[in-house]
């Protein structure tokens, strides 16, 4: 009895297995045109997104262009111990975190404020034109924005210094002064991103049930009270999610802008992981060391992003994926 039972089961298992394969073959045959369409995409991801991961191996080698990736000697964690033992490490870590943190804290409230102000406008056309202007900077390239900054802060005839002089103050070369690097960088980030980031909050505001405002008005709430008691609580979930996600990507500094604005005089506060990687790797051809620094940064960034997403999910939010 028992024996025939297991044979039946095994036969059944085989049948399931076989029918799975024939089913799969049928589905592949049915979808073959779709799969052909998908091939370029898969090739792209394999070569340009997964391919570079193999290049990370050079972080554990003494890679040189002449010996190539297959013949360069393995050196284990040499480059990592060099990084952790050097003064560079502390400086880069501190600069990356400080710049990311202050940028996050200082620029976070502005899009929310802008969305709140825009939401109170009753003339649709006015609202629309202000909004259109406000996200113009998001369309400008980092080179253009950086050249504006360099231009405005020029000690010779930059508009900021002309203003200072005409107010009876002394002109100042901001871009070579380390204490001014962060304020300049962060201000320009606020200018660039406020309008763009406000879009998401405006959408959140638009999703608030209008009857809540009416109820508030019936209860005698003025404009301020209804902003405070209806609008703000209404967009709070979005605000929290955005904050967590931005914290997760905090150390992904806009290094292109840093690269354009820093100089040897301000390296001590401006140099971040990515700019260091660029200088060591591509300008000094020190590929292995640069790849090691880049790998370390990528790991820190990934941990922070996963952590932020985890927290966001725990709070009942949707997370990033």
């Amino acid at each position, binding site marked *: 009895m028992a024996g025939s039972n297991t044979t039946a089961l095994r036969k059944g298992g085989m049948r399931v297995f076989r029918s799975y394969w024939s089913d799969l073959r049928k589905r592949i045959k049915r979808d073959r*045109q*779709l*799969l052909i*369409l*998908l091939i*370029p*995409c898969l090739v*792209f*991801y394999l070569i340009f997104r997964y391919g*570079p*991961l*193999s*290049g*990370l191996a050079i972080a554990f080698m003494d890679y040189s262009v002449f010996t190539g990736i297959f013949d360069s000697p393995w050196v284990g964690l040499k480059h990592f111990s060099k990084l952790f033992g050097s003064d560079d490490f502390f400086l880069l870590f501190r600069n990356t975190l400080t710049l990311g943190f202050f940028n996050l804290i200082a620029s976070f409230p502005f899009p929310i404020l*802008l969305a709140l*102000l*825009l939401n*109170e406008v*009753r003339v649709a056309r*006015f609202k629309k*034109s*202000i909004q*259109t*202007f406000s996200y*113009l900077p998001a*369309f*400008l*390239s*980092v*080179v*253009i924005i950086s*050249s*504006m900054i360099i*231009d405005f802060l*020029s000690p010779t*005839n930059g508009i900021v210094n*002309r203003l200072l002089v005409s107010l009876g103050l002394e002109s100042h*070369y901001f871009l070579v002064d380390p204490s001014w690097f962060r304020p300049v960088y962060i201000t320009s980030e606020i*200018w660039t991103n406020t309008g763009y980031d406000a879009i*998401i909050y405006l*959408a959140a505001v638009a999703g608030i049930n209008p009857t809540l405002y009416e109820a508030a008005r019936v209860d005698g709430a003025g404009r301020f009270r209804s902003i405070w008691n209806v609008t703000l609580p209404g967009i709070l979930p979005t605000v929290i999610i955005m904050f967590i996600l931005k914290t997760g990507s905090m150390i992904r500094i806009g290094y*292109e802008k840093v690269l354009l604005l820093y*100089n*040897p*005089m301000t390296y001590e506060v401006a140099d971040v992981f*990515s700019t260091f*990687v*660029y*200088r060591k790797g591509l300008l000094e051809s020190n*590929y292995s060391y*640069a*790849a090691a620094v880049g*790998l370390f*940064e*990528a790991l820190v*960034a*990934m941990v922070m*992003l*996963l952590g932020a997403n985890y927290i966001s999910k725990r709070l009942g939010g949707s997370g990033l*994926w």
Partner: protein
Amino acid sequence: MVGQARFTFFGVINAIMLVGVAIATLYPVLYIAAVSLSDTASVSQGQVWLLPKGLNFEAYAEVLKDDKIPRAYLNTIFYTAFGTFVNLLMTAIAAYPLANRDLVFRKFWMLMIVLTMFLNPGIIPNYLIVQQLGLIDSVWALVLPNAIWTFELIILKTFYENMSSQIREAALIDGASEFRILFNIVIPLSKPAMASIGLFYFMGHWNSFFLPMIYLNDQALYPLQVVLRGMLIFNEGSTAGLVDKAALAPQAMKNATIVLAMIPVLIVYPFAQKYFAKGVMLGSEKG
């Protein structure tokens, strides 16, 4: 009702603050344009505040005389047009099969794609791949490594998923191939979504500076943004970085180049803004 009065105290303060925001946003751009249209003397004496002094177009004539900037401009136009075309094509042919809910191994493909949003091997490994493929100093170095942006792919896939599947089924019964359905039916029907992601790709190519800087060595291939950077920073890593860069380049010429680089963007973005906002919002609801 009181709340509906057109000009409340609150409304006026609010409007003033918003006008302030608009001025803060627009002033730097207008100032750059004003300097580009002013004569050298007024600029060097610092007399330009908002309107051009000694209005003239010499800086533009100067910029266009030398073939360096017109060539860079043409390079940028070519890279942007070609790059955006490749992006849209690649994204569309990938999004279409993935939008089909019972595609074989769909979950695996999606995982493979979405996972890359969290893997960021960094500048050096990416550079080495491009180098090993022999793409340095070719337009492909600017096009292939970012041929698909995962985020835009997900946006388009979501859009396709929400399209009616009846058209596709009917076309399949009529014997149309998936290629024909995609190119003759789906893509023409998804113009708003294509415009939205196309805008992001367009902006990405037009404003791109880091990739052309590291992947192109031949100056004749430089796009506008890289040339513009060259006008800002003369000698990276040398002491020249410490002298006042702005004073070295003729100010008006530099600003004329900036204005030329901004013009297409300024033309495109007001028209594109409805797609733009839609793209941001579509991106926030995940597929």
